[in-house]
């Protein structure tokens, strides 16, 4: 089955583009302009270094180097004067805390060394996220050490001190009447109460979103990405302006129309682990996931059936689904067959399904509610009683605020957590000028802060106290893990101070908890309750069962919504504004780790761009191929009378007639001078009915003086000419067939013949030239198993690896040359069926239904292979081969094998011949081309070039220098630590006690690390499964990393 598909990493490979074919045969794909350099006679003659100079420098260099080697530097050892009890130099401390950036919420565990936070992982105690984090949560530790953070409060553009600014603000606020506090959604009950102190005194509990009291002061919530449509729809349907909670672990059928619920939609971090639990083919049932969408999202790549559709059609698809499920007046669409198939599955799993839609249109969302109501999902998979607090912004209230500001009805505006000048543009900037007192709490200078009179920089989250109630009854605490690095003060503390409350925010939270949360908790002593919550990070407090005992009934007007939905008109070219995994709504835009993390789908770094269907691009004559020297076409996208310039790239699977641009870009990263990417927020349509993330657009070609390059890792490090890299099958085959059908063992012709004269095939190990290592089954044998069914491709593991192993950031230019240093990459393969219809797999007869359902094959067979490919994400790192190709070719034995199965790398021994990389079948070795932490070329991008940025480095891992080869060590520092802990405790290494950086970061637990020789381990269990295979096992390198065959929930 698996071999009936063609896998390709990019269009270059699909179309056998000549450059790709040429470079992919080389280990190092970069183009070195040697001939050009030598042919440039004039330039060479002008060169000022003569041969004699060269020899002089050489001689001097040798002498200087020898002299330097003789020097004995005097090192000082400076102990603490008074050592804090909990700090032991050399040992890490872990603190439970909370991450919340206005959109993503995650309970986290912060690892600190000698008082410096250096690594963030998810808190597995959390019942909400189950420890799920994404790359932004992970990489936020780097933002703490961002040298561009504001270092002191500012007044009128000049640095000042807190006393001065407090006095000035207090004076202004005293005379102000209409004080408005504008924030992102606030999930912290204490912060809400602190804001109330300022805007309304201690009158009453906050009403969702807004609190208006006599003096006209109010707290307004504004989300960079609006979910107003859902809030208002739920208000109409249930009388509650809430975001429901979803139980994806119970959903047998999931239909998502344009909602990337595994990436950035609503509380994705709370869904993704639950979703992954339903994707295990060995369970009783496996969920079936339909995704209708324009651009390829993370959810789309993981869906069983993905149908490209224009964003204007989302409403019609929902309406059609509504009709097919028994509602009246369903719309007609071009996707009838697929919608019918989805409806059939939904009907079969009533009360065990979820329908979601990414549209911000209230009417569409009312219709979605009606569908879920028809399916009986409320109270089962969707809960409107236990609700999520993560999104509270309603568009109309923000519009009202802007109107008030313009009318001069706002005396003072305090802005925290949002950058409305950046996200709303001129409309807000103009209104802001009319406000007399403006205060920004931004941690870094942003567009809004620049326009504000006072800037009172808040602490980084890791320097702050916080609490959170992301979902009714679920609380978490956040504690500082380092003292504020600069002269900054937490927003809440500033607010309290100005409200005349002198409590520190820590005391304030504690008091709030003692008065409000502790009484509900059922605990006996507040001290114990507080300490335990602080230690665990999270606590579930049963909500007081009071007035809401009655069931909430759906009371929306579905038919009215339906007729409104059917009126939505589409355009010839539609622009969809999306968020990607690295930058999100803009949170990660200034973080070098995130910018360098290849996008999970396009594999592009350091840029935003318009994605377009490759067939359409070819029609327009645009370049669809990536490559080091490929020049990309740049287009001007115009929508809502706003124009931005972005390069256009091919995205297989993009709906025809649409382009997509990621939001959140256009910010300056590190020490760079120009912003990275373009800000697409101006293209967001803001109308009376709300904000819309799609629009009719026109595009025009832009001629640039220079070629525009894109740094895409898509076709770098290609595993060549092997067809056993990816193995996938369908649930049908997996359940009914035998292992031979979907995961056959490798055999080779042996040369011996049987009685009929046929050559006998034998298993691989029969051919092995190598004997087993004598210790192979003795002691430890570390390894991993990666389940491609639950791997979503989110790339949290990639940034986690960067943080743990001090991997250098090298910048766009070097990434383009194929020199990205990441030890771990996630290969994204597109695949398309290459077989005629009607012959879907030998022993399994294809039914008519199977063909319809298997939307991918029917669809792709009709169209171009790149129109709607299916996608596989495959994490790839050193396979720690027992018979490694790299080890045998190293001339200096710098890479050798350990008794415990690790492929070791001694950097100080490496002389940089790169033979090992050339001989690696998996292309996982990275050559260190430059001294990235010192060379001036990387000052702009590499955060380790200044002392502040270096504070994030892991002291347990060496910082590699120029000229050595590096690769995944399987986090040997963690293995050593784990073994030592076991030795000290005098017990065996318990399975699961040692986790690598990638396995601990994986939100879906797709990566299992363990000891192959521990027969009771999860790894041994996974390895012995029928789905387990090793990549290109036929080359006989006997790796220690296993993969689990991907199973899609499809028939045949």
């Amino acid at each position: 089955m698996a071999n009936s598909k063609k896998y390709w990493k990019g269009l270059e490979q699909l179309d056998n583009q000549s450059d790709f074919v040429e470079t992919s045969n080389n280990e190092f794909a970069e183009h070195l302009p040697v001939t050009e350099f030598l042919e440039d006679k004039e330039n060479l003659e002008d060169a000022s270094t003569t041969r004699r100079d060269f020899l002089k420098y050489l001689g001097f260099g040798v002498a200087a180097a020898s002299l330097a080697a003789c020097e004995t530097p005097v090192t000082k050892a400076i102990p603490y004067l008074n050592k804090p009890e909990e700090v032991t130099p050399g040992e890490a401390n872990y603190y439970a805390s909370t991450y919340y950036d206005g959109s993503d919420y995650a309970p986290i565990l912060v690892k600190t060394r000698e008082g410096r936070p250096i690594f963030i992982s998810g808190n597995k105690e959390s019942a909400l996220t189950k420890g799920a984090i994404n790359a932004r949560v992970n990489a936020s530790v780097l933002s703490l050490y961002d040298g561009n953070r504001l270092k002191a409060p500012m007044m009128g553009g000049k640095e000042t001190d807190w006393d001065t600014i407090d006095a000035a603000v207090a004076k202004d606020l005293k005379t102000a009447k209409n004080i408005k506090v504008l924030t992102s959604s606030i999930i912290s009950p204490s912060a809400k109460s602190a804001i109330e102190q300022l805007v309304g005194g201690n009158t009453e509990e906050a009403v969702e979103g807004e609190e208006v009291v006599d003096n006209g002061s109010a707290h307004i919530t504004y989300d960079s990405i609006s979910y107003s449509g859902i809030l208002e729809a739920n208000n109409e349907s249930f009388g509650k302006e809430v975001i429901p909670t979803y139980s994806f672990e119970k959903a047998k059928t999931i239909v998502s129309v344009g909602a990337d619920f595994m990436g950035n939609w609503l509380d994705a971090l709370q869904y993704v682990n639950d979703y992954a639990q339903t994707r295990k083919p060995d369970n009783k049932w496996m969920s079936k996931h339909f995704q209708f969408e324009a651009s390829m999202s993370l959810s789309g790549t993981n869906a069983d059936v993905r149908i490209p559709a224009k964003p204007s059609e989302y409403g019609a698809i929902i309406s059609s689904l509504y009709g097919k499920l028994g509602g009246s007046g369903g719309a007609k669409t071009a996707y009838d067959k697929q919608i019918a198939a989805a409806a059939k599955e939904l009907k079969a799993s009533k009360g065990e399904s979820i329908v979601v839609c990414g549209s911000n249109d209230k009417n569409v969302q009312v219709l979605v509610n009606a569908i879920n109501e028809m399916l009986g999902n409320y109270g089962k998979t969707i809960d409107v009683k236990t609700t999520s607090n993560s999104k509270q912004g309603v568009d109309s209230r923000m519009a009202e605020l802007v109107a008030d500001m313009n009318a001069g009805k706002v005396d003072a505006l305090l802005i925290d957590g949002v950058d409305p000048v950046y996200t709303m543009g001129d409309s807000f900037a103009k209104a802001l000028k009319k406000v007399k007192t403006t205060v920004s709490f931004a941690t870094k200078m942003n567009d809004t802060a620049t326009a504000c009179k006072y800037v009172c920089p808040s602490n980084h989250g890791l320097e702050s106290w916080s609490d959170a109630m992301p979902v009714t009854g679920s609380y978490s605490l956040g504690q500082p893990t380092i003292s504020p690095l600069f002269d900054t003060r937490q927003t809440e503390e500033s607010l309290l101070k100005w409200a005349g409350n002198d409590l520190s925010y820590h005391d304030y939270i504690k008091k709030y908890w003692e008065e409000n949360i502790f009484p509900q908790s059922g605990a006996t002593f507040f001290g114990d309750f507080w300490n335990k919550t602080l230690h665990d990070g999270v606590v579930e407090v049963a909500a007081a069962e009071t007035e809401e005992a009655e069931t909430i009934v759906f009371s929306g007007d579905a038919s009215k919504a339906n007729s409104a939905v059917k009126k939505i008109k589409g355009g010839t070219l539609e622009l969809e504004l999306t968020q990607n995994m690295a930058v999100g709504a803009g949170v990660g835009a200034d973080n070098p780790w995130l910018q360098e993390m290849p996008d999970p789908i396009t594999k592009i770094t350091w840029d935003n761009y318009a994605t377009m269907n490759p067939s359409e691009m070819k029609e327009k004559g645009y370049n669809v191929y990536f490559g080091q020297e490929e020049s990309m076409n740049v287009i001007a996208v115009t929508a809502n009378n706003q124009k931005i310039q972005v390069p256009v790239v091919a995205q297989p699977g993009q709906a025809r007639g649409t382009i997509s641009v990621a939001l959140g870009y256009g910010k300056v990263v590190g020490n760079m001078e120009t912003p990275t990417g373009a800000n697409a927020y101006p293209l967001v349509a803001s109308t009376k009915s709300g904000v819309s993330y799609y629009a009719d657009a026109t595009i025009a070609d832009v001629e640039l003086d220079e070629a525009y390059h894109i740094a895409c890792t898509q076709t770098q490090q290609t595993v060549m000419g092997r067809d056993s890299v990816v193995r996938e099958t369908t649930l049908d085959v997996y359940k009914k067939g035998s292992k031979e059908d979907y995961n056959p063992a490798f055999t080779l012709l042996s040369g011996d013949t049987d009685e009929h004269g046929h050559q006998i095939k034998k298993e691989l190990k029969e051919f092995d030239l190598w004997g087993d290592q004598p210790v192979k089954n003795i002691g430890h044998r570390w390894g991993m198993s990666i389940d491609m069914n639950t791997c979503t491709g989110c790339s949290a593991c990639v940034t986690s690896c960067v943080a743990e192993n001090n991997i250098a950031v090298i910048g766009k230019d070097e990434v383009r040359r194929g020199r990205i240093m990441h030890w771990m990459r996630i290969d994204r393969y597109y695949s398309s069926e290459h077989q005629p219809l009607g012959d879907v797999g030998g022993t399994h007869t294809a039914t008519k239904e199977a063909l319809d359902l298997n939307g991918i094959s029917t669809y792709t067979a009709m169209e171009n292979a790149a129109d709607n490919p299916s996608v596989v994400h495959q994490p790839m790192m050193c396979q720690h081969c027992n018979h490694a190709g790299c080890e045998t070719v190293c001339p200096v034995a710098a890479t050798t094998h350990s008794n415990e199965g690790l492929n070791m790398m001694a950097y100080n021994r490496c002389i940089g011949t790169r033979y090992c990389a050339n001989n690696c079948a998996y292309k996982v070795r990275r050559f260190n081309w430059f001294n990235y932490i010192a060379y001036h070329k990387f000052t702009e991008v590499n955060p380790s070039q200044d002392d502040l940025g270096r504070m994030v480095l892991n002291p347990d891992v060496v910082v590699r220098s120029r000229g050595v080869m590096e690769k995944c060590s399987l986090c040997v520092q963690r293995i050593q630590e784990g073994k030592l802990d076991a030795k000290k405790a005098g017990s065996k290494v318990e399975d699961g006690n040692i986790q690598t950086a990638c396995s601990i970061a994986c939100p879906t637990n797709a990566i299992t690390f363990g000891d192959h020789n521990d027969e009771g381990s999860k790894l041994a269990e996974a390895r012995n499964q029928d789905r387990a295979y090793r990549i290109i096992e036929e080359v006989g390198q006997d790796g220690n990393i296993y993969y689990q065959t991907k199973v899609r929930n499809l028939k045949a």
Partner: protein
Amino acid sequence: MNKITNLTKANTLFKVSLFCFSFLFFQINSYSQEEAVTENPEVVEENAEVAEEKAEAGNGLDGKKLFKANCAACHNVGTKKTVGPGLAGINDKRSREWLGKWIKNNAELRESGDADAVAIFEEYNKSIMPPQPVNDEEIDAILAYIQNPGTEEAAVVEEVGSGEVVEEDNSKLKCIFGAVIILLIVLIITLNKTGVFMREMEAKNEGREYDGPTSLWGNFMKLMGDNKGIVAAIVIVLFFGGLVGLMDGAFEIGVHQGYKPEQPIKFSHKIHAGDDQIDCNYCHSSARHSKTSGIPSLNVCMNCHKAIDGSDGKTFMYNGAEYSMVEEIQKIYDHLDYDPETQEYGDNPTPVKWIKIHNLPDHVYYSHEQHVTAGKQKCQTCHGPVEEMDIVEQHSPLTMKWCIDCHKETAVSTDGNGYYDDMHKRMTPEFREKVMKDGMLTVDEIGGWECAKCHY
């Protein structure tokens, strides 16, 4: 005759050059941070058992011992305040009866309304002196000791250098070398003169004019010209000898065995770890549960030195010289901005910048807990007899060869450790037989020689 003279000369020359050569390398191997060597010709050898006068109570009880056991944590026998007041002259100030009550239960005394007791209580910030489990006889003994603490502590060196010469006396050696060199030069000149004289005589005897060289240089050149083979051999030997020396020297680069820098505070490990028998782990507590052994923070010093402040004028021997205790201990106080009179800490503390002695390269991840706790190694295995060093020096070369040599010889401490029991279970009989051939499981046999054990 001629030949013999020449050979003698050649030999001498060869010896001289070899000597110079070795001297050269002697210089190369010395450190850039050479320790100022303290001359230590004679160490005051004093008897440690200085007249230890017993308390004159006559009841046979040792007042000093009792004082040390019960009182010394908070009081001293001088006039200086520590936690509690100094007790000099207490017998005159208070009545015996009052003292007895106070020592046994001062709270009761206070409650009874005794004005003196309340005043003291107030003076010392209401810190309570716990009731002491001593009987009247013992109190008498203690008071007698306070009355007459003996003379030994006033001027006596508390810790006396053992008389060992801590360092090789390099200057003496240098003197000898110098003398030898001068002697050799004189010898060469004399030999030259004698040789020329002899040859002149020979020529005279044979009735011809002596036309050979007379100067030392001339003779040297003639010698070279006459013995080209030998000279070539010498040159070759010198060249290769030099090469070998150079390579040996190169191997020594970065090896600082014997590195012994002067530290900012004259802290003697010999006094603390040797004489006072303080366990290494008391100060270097993180050696047991961290990668680093940890330089003790000053609050650890203050555990003892809050009471032991050297105010009694004691001195100590450090590297052969005598120093005042109070000056060195005052350095701790200065760094902490601590005032021993008021017993208060100021707000201007400064860090102590010790000089790090054991410097491993950055790419080596050595773990103390692995060796101390899991491996049950003694500190002295690597650090040498620290308890005998005033100034700590780098005892071991800390080269990789040294590490792996030790890993080859050292048996893993597996007894009673569940981790190794589990590992043993996984061994095949053949493997066990192979590794246990020498009767023990050495570190290298379980992967202690692998790169990634220390380099990552």
